[in-house]
């Protein structure tokens, strides 16, 4: 069907996504044409390509992708923290609860320094090594408060509360050195450190990757509690689709450095429309199963220097047609809360049935 309809959609919406069309939504982070590129000897490596997405205030959005899909770059780009020599283009607009919108990518060093951690905070992959090994946790908190001219005493009180919210013993943690805590404890201490300046948005890049399954689940439930208590917006980046369905309100699937599909979690689990999302879900026999049992998807992840023309998924997609090879599919609305970038999404139900019987 959708040749005409999708072209039409493309024309009318241009670069703006479906989300931003509804004006009553409270958007906290607005990304437009967000791209990250590295110049390399063999050409330009585009590790994030023209991504448009709106992150709503108070939601938990899960960003799912294979390794090398650009998801870490997306996380860094939200804070304008892509490491050099990476180049970030496009627009990230931060809308504070009150005050003028902030152009994150256009900020000078000083304002950028205060935006990070005060407004948008981040928990990295690798909490094990996110702390200075020769400094206790209290000093980590104090120096952070100090660098942003926050009141230290009040800040430490907040840190103590955060730590107990995360089921840690505040005094014990504050007086410990990094090597004295277990991985899971360090991970939670890092989340507390990320929240000590009361940011609005918390970006987490694979926060649970190094933890065992039990610890992963417990951190997931802690995160929901934190969101409710502190009115946070969370961007949760992971390769673990089953895990993120337990937590996120919405899920965006990144493939080849752009979004393939974005939608409410329930729709994404029950009725995903993109062949890649279906493949990801079908690779997970049981959404409650540990990730180690997940089957890999056949075919290789695309090369950022040489992204396939047309639909980037066409050489792995069982439904690919000639059209897919030549024309890049635009984002198309499946429902008010669900959009997908695929020419043939209406046929996906017949072609690739979902094998998961699990309801969210």
């Amino acid at each position, binding site marked *: 069907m959708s040749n005409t309809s999708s072209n039409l959609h493309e024309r009318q919406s241009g670069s703006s996504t479906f989300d931003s069309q509804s004006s009553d939504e409270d958007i906290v982070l607005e990304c437009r044409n967000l791209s990250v590129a590295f110049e390399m000897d063999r050409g330009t490596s585009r590790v994030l390509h023209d991504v448009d997405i709106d992150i709503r205030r108070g939601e938990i959005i899960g960003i799912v992708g294979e390794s090398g899909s650009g998801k870490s770059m997306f996380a860094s780009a939200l*804070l304008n*923290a892509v*490491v050099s020599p990476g180049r970030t283009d496009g627009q990230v607009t931060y809308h504070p609860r009150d005050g003028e919108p902030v152009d994150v990518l256009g900020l000078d060093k000083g304002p950028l*320094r*205060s935006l*990070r*951690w005060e407004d948008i905070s*981040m928990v*990295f992959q*690798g909490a*094990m*090594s*996110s*702390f*200075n*090994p*020769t*400094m*206790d946790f209290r000093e980590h908190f104090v*120096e*952070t408060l100090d*660098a*942003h001219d926050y009141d230290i005493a009040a800040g430490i009180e907040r840190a103590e509360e955060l730590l107990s919210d995360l089921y840690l013993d505040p005094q014990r943690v504050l007086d410990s*050195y990094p*090597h*004295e*805590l*277990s*991985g899971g404890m*360090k991970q939670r201490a890092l989340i507390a*450190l990320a929240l000590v300046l009361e940011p609005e948005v918390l970006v987490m890049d694979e926060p649970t990757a190094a933890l065992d399954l039990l610890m992963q689940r417990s951190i997931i439930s802690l995160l929901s509690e934190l969101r409710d208590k502190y009115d946070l917006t969370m961007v949760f980046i992971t390769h673990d689709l089953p895990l993120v369905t337990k937590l996120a309100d919405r899920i965006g699937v990144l493939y080849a450095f752009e979004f393939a599909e974005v939608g409410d979690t329930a729709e994404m689990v029950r009725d995903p429309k993109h062949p890649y999302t279906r493949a990801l879900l079908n690779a997970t026999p049981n959404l409650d199963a540990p990730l180690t049992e997940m089957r890999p998807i056949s075919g290789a992840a695309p090369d950022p220097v040489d992204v396939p023309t047309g639909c980037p998924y066409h050489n792995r997609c069982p439904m690919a047609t000639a059209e897919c090879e030549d024309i890049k599919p635009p984002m198309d609305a499946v429902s008010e809360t669900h959009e997908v970038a695929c020419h043939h999404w209406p046929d996906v139900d017949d072609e690739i049935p979902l094998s998961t019987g699990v309801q969210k």
Partner: protein
Amino acid sequence: MYEYFVKRTGQALFTAFVVVTLSFALVRLMPGNPADQLRGQLIRNNPSLSQQEINRRVANYINIDYSAPLHEQYLDYIAGILRGDLGQSISQNASVAEILGQALPWTVFAFSVAILLMFVVGIALGSIMAYWEGSRFDVGTTGIGIVLNSTPNYVTALLFLYVFGFTLGWFPTSGHISSQVVPIVDPLRPVATFQFVADAVYHASLLIAAVVITGFGGVALAMRGNSIQVLGEDYLRVARLRGLSDTRIALRYVARNAILPMYTGLLLAFGAVIGGSAILEQVFTYPGLGYYIVAAVEARDYPLMMGGFVLITLAVVIGAFIADLTYGLVDPRVSTGGDAS
């Protein structure tokens, strides 16, 4: 921590004991038994001495009475060392303890200054190299550092002595102070004290320069490597994102974590350099520990030689011991006995 302390102390004591025992065994096993040689010397010089008198003098010199059974000799020897009695020097007409006691402070002074300078220069250069990794400065300094580091320090020493000592005459070529300067360290007489210290530094400066020039390259390269490693750590990226000031990151994050692994090296360097002091002190005719050891070897002055060896080895053992014990104070990871995770 307590257990660690006890263990390290035990190890140090054991090492010291082994060193002293080995030195005893060496003298006993040395070809051309030193006691016989001394006996011969005494008989040649004073043919009128009685056998008993000769035995007494030999025992006095060597600190070992050869007529006693072996285990008694050994116990006497240990007891002597514990009392600070290392015997009587043959060539210097003074007790070994006295000679070494006078020489040691000069060696410690000259080489401490040298090693500290070497570390300060090396650490400063190494951090700059790491920050500018790959720059011409980095590449150039790395090259120079490697060349200087592989030059033996006595070669540099001879060169300095020839150029700055004899040819240009800028620095004294021997001794540790000028003859007219009174060795005095007295806070009530600051001028005299200052004169003395300045003169001492002046006399030691070529020796210090030789150690620093040939040693800083290794320190700089180690510091460079450590810093580059720390600069790539996750916690550094997080620290930057947290908005910490560049100064704090440079000092509290990079410098601290890069210097820490070198702390043990610093203390061990004292032992190693003092152990190697003999040649340098000989080149500069600097009457320190090493100078007397060489003199003793030349004069076949066994008691002095042995005393020097024992002292130097003990210095190395003590250096390593201090390094072990204090490392826990500077690195929190050690005080709890290793990595918990």
